[in-house]
């Protein structure tokens, strides 16, 4: 996935030789994120509009972790988020886009990050309860899982998102939590991992959503910690990076999905942190900022935030501490 990718390349492309001992280029990354929204003369900016609200969340989170929460203007951020809201309480990815679980979660996460959840209850706005009921109505009463929108596509991503947003809103009581938990359980595989639906191949991204959901529900006791921890630690490849499934290529975004899952079950030390840190740092563009999926590829905001969040979990000096859930 990419969101306003480029312009730079991780590792600086062919013309730059990176030094052996790499550091995190904090100022470059702050600048990179700040300028994302000024690139409106590029087609890609508009072709990623269906992700805009999530993109804003990723950029904002990265800035907070980098210790520069002020780098995006607060009032404009709130105004943009509110402009994406529908009457039913849900949010679309951008003004005029249909309400969807994923963007509703991003909206709540953004407002929570900048301590602005009360903005939802201002006169003339839908209110927190409405947001809560939009999310709660997407739960399937039979299976406990969640759909993304009225069309009914289900995915453990939506389930995790629902629990995350509702817990931030203190509205978890609106849903059948035990049913959601038992759906997550049904997605567990014999290898210790979790897939997108019952029987689906274990996938690090889906594992994050399932373990995160169980953490929010206070049911981490249901996780087979040793087996899952083992599967997750096997994601580290020789070069230090992490892949998302067996026999796949490593990718910076799994520094977050795998690492945060390991952190949630208390097994972060089962991978080689130093090697992973070096891999993430090699994916930076030292000149224009941003992080790519792998050295030599185009940077984008998605990999930038997950690379930085991964470094934060590894206690990289100077970064704010991230909550693995």
């Amino acid at each position, binding site marked *: 996935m990419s969101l306003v990718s480029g312009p730079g390349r991780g590792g600086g492309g062919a013309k730059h030789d990176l030094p052996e001992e790499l550091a995190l280029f904090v100022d470059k990354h702050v600048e990179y994120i700040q300028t994302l929204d000024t690139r409106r003369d590029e087609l890609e900016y508009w*072709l990623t509009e269906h992700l805009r609200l999530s993109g804003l969340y990723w950029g904002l989170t990265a800035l907070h972790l980098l210790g520069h929460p002020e780098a995006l203007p607060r009032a404009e951020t709130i*105004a943009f988020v509110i402009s994406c809201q529908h009457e039913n309480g849900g949010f679309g990815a951008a003004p005029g*886009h249909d309400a969807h679980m994923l963007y509703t979660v991003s909206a709540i996460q953004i407002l929570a990050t900048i301590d602005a959840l009360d903005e939802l209850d201002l006169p003339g706005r839908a209110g927190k309860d409405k947001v809560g009921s939009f999310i709660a109505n997407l739960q399937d009463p039979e299976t406990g899982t969640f759909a993304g929108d009225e069309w009914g596509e289900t995915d453990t991503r939506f389930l995790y998102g629902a629990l995350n947003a509702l817990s931030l809103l203190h509205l978890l009581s609106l849903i059948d939590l035990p049913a959601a938990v038992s759906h997550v359980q049904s997605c567990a595989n*014999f290898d210790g991992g979790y897939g997108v639906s019952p*029987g*689906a191949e274990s996938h690090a991204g889906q594992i994050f959503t399932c373990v995160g959901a169980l953490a929010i529900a206070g049911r981490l006791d249901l996780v087979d910690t040793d087996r899952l921890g083992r599967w997750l630690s096997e994601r580290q490849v020789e070069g230090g990076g992490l892949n998302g*499934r067996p*026999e796949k290529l490593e990718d910076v975004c799994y520094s977050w999905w795998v690492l945060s899952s390991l952190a949630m079950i208390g097994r972060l*030390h089962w991978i080689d942190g130093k090697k992973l840190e070096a891999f993430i740092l090699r994916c930076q563009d030292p000149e224009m900022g941003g992080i790519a999926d792998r050295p030599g590829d185009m940077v984008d905001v998605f990999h930038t935030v997950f690379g930085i969040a991964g470094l934060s979990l590894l206690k990289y000096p100077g970064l704010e501490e991230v909550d693995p859930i």
Partner: protein
Amino acid sequence: MSYSTSPDWADVEPIAQEDGDHPLAAIAYMDDYSEAMSYLRAVMAANEHSERALVLTEDIISMNPAHYTVWLFRAKTLFELGSDLREELTYLNAIALKYQKNYQIWHHRQLIMEKLGDPTGEGKFIAQMFEKDAKNYHVWSYRQWLVRHFSLWDSPTELSDIQSLLLADVRNNSAWNHRFFLIFGRQEQYPSFTPLPETVKRETEYAKTAVYSAPQNPCPWVFLRGILKKTKQPLSTIQSFAAEFAPFERPDEVKSSHALDVLADIFAETEGRKEDAVKVLDLLAQRYDPIRANYWRYKKARLTPIPMATTAAAA
């Protein structure tokens, strides 16, 4: 084409995106995309489900296939018009082949397939997708949905397709997972379902043959462990098999860290073999899988259980 000069669209007043007074949402769309989107907003606002609306969605999808709202509107329109859904599948095939990472298209295809009620031809299309990327997660999820929805558990083509994918790449974990799903996936709906003994035997032999061809491939090892667990057989069933690839007394001849791992688990549970378990775990931590040294040390530490009595002191 330009919508504003087309006679087909003369009666529609396009709806430009509101940019309001917040600069983060300001507008600078590229011309074609921007124009098409403004007509989409107009037909959606008018709830217009028509042939020209379908053409419009195709135009937008060709520029931006990840725009989820367009897909939803298209599905609604197809159903309203009672369009030929086979034709829609042909259209979707081309898009899916072009945009491998797209999410939206798969749910759309599922909606179409549910309405159509006949999966003929899906196997052929999926094979084309796998030619491009045989580990595409969307395609595998969709394939599982097909199996479940149309009850294709015992379909001979399911197994033979998996067979040829594994022949092409024995390290394709997605294919291994599907193979496992075909055997045990029915338990989800029918918890008492157990596969026939000859199926279990066939699958066990299949996995063992795959291990011989690539002992360090994790997939068949996980598959073997899964079969044993699901059929309630002890891990020690494959002890001598694993020992072939992990003669731990002659470390230079070890061919598979996964075989070592199996032996470590068996020894840990076997009276009088704790010392061998330690040897095997040390080999993994120091030589055959040092990147996960902490994990192997943890397993070693667990070999000596802490006496329960110590917890009573606190009371």
